[in-house]
């Protein structure tokens, strides 16, 4: 990094404590902020291309390899899209199991991020290892919460990383009542620990940084939107998932392999926990809404630094819902609904821990995939992150470089960016001259 009297160029070559690889360039000339570039340099991932020609039943397992932290978002997003085109609905106990495994993913992803990746920023540590020396209990609890989230994936999915038990139509095998009840004690512990995590997070110090975002999330009439719903925003979007492409535009920029997304006719979109919290606040259980109010959070939170608090609330929500599902579980008669292919285009979107993860597939009458589009939430959030950085840096350009870098990294981690999956590819043109 270098700093001159009136000009500064700050380069963070490798962002720490984010999933994947990214970098940040900030250019200041004559005391004016000239440029901010968030650079994604994960190699382009050709998933959308190599899905063509595959069988529709392969899409969940192939796309799950996009992300090791949030595979359920891909397994279920792909499954819902294929079920959509084939005219199949998964309901009842099978749907409850889908909610349960998604609760597991939220817990393990959020817990990792809250306690191991983001908390060090707020407490002034370079890493969770350093933080553990002074705050061992915070790290212990975080690891335990993550472990119990992973256990849900293991019991329902067969393993934690890239679960193998999910398929289009449901599962290959469903757990017995006894098997699923082995989770109960841990989930109840997690629920209590999550309440304390919410209160702990409220004691952190947050910069005053409120912006007029367009928050976009799934909204469902009966539940906190996770696996199904309508695309909804605080500025007027209210559309079925099948109209996702009508809601957003995508462009390619030179410094990144990830496409940039804007709300059609408007500005950037903000996906993730803060969007979900604002749009689905009334669908939270009463005791969680009360707790949110107790810690000074209510519908209308527009400070992304407080996302850490909202993630704690979502961990609590996920544990609470998981307890209810496990306590009321009835083993389904069949592990899956039969799905026969038919020609057409299907759409699926679920709320990955980081926000809406969208899938669209076109298949033929034999179930061969002709076209695929997968949009990860970090891909959509990338433009919003850059705008946040512009707004954050401008009034603080006189800060020492180290302090500016620290806070920029913290601001990026508000979004828990999963950079490894934020590269859904443009049409590839090869010019051989």
């Amino acid at each position, binding site marked *: 990094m270098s700093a001159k009297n009136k000009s500064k160029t700050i380069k963070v070559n490798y962002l720490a404590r984010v999933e994947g690889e990214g970098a940040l360039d900030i250019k200041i000339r004559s005391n004016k902020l000239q440029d901010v570039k968030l650079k994604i340099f994960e190699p382009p991932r050709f998933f959308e291309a190599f899905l063509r020609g595959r069988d529709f039943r392969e899409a969940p397992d192939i796309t799950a390899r996009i992300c090791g932290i949030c595979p359920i978002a891909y397994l279920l997003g792909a499954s819902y899209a294929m079920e959509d085109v084939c005219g199949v609905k998964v309901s009842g106990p099978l749907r409850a199991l889908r909610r349960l495994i998604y609760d597991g993913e939220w817990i393990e992803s959020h817990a990792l991020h809250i306690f191991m990746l983001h908390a060090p920023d707020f407490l002034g540590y370079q890493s969770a290892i350093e933080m*553990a020396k002074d705050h061992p209990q915070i*790290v212990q609890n975080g*690891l*335990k919460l993550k472990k119990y989230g992973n256990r849900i994936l293991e019991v329902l999915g067969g393993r934690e*990383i890239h679960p193998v038990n999910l398929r289009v139509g449901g599962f290959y095998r469903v757990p017995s009542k006894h098997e699923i009840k082995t989770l109960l004690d841990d989930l109840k512990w997690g629920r209590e620990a999550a309440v304390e995590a919410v209160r702990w997070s409220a004691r952190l110090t947050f910069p005053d940084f409120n912006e007029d975002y367009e928050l976009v999330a799934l909204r469902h009439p009966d539940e906190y939107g996770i696996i199904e719903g309508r695309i909804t925003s605080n500025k007027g979007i209210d559309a079925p998932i099948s109209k996702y492409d009508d809601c957003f535009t995508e462009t390619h920029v030179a410094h990144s392999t990830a496409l940039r997304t804007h709300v059609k006719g408007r500005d950037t979109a903000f996906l993730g926990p803060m969007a979900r919290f604002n749009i689905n606040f009334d669908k939270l259980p009463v005791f969680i809404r009360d707790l949110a109010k107790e810690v000074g959070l209510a519908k209308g939170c527009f400070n992304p630094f407080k996302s850490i608090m909202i993630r704690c609330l979502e961990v609590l929500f996920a544990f609470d819902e998981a307890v209810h599902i496990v306590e009321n579980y009835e083993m389904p008669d069949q592990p899956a609904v039969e799905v026969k292919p038919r020609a057409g285009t299907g759409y699926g979107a679920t709320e990955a821990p980081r926000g809406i993860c969208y899938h669209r597939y076109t298949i033929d009458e034999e179930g061969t995939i002709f076209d695929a589009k997968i949009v990860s939430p970090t891909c959509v959030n990338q433009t919003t992150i850059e705008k946040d950085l512009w707004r954050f840096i401008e009034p603080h350009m006189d800060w020492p470089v180290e302090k500016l870098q620290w806070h920029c990294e913290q601001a990026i981690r508000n979004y828990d960016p999963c950079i490894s999956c934020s590269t859904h590819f443009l049409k590839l043109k090869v010019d051989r001259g």
Partner: protein
Amino acid sequence: MAKKEITAKTKLMVIGIGNESRADDGVGLYIAERLEQRYRGGIKVLKHRGGTTNLIHEWEGFDKVIICDAVHSGQRAGFIYRFDYPKDEFPEEIFRFSTHTFSLGQVLELAKLLNHLPKEVIIYGIEGKFFTVGDRLSPEVQESVSEVIERIRKDIDRGH
């Protein structure tokens, strides 16, 4: 899909870490598989492919843990490192890890800080030649496997 049951007498665990789709990065898993067949349930063997932070919970309750993983240090392929952690200086940078998870060294240090480290931790690092996509070990690494297994057998027999 159920996890292997831990018996009341099982205080030793062997952990193979790696990715069998990345050529020599699979050596830890390969060694763990061979030991599992050799001891037929007599010891707890874990083949670990996922997030390393979970190891802190996996070895809870065990007195002695032996870990195998591929390394990349510039040594000749097949070279065998052995570390007695934390007594020996531990060059964590030679143990392969991704940007998506904590390194083995970080997890060991974290476990130490949280008092979750087994009484005895032995780590074998085998120098890999190829880490590209592939499902076979290179000949040099394959040749080292038997020696590593023999050394682990002596570690197991000593005081177990």
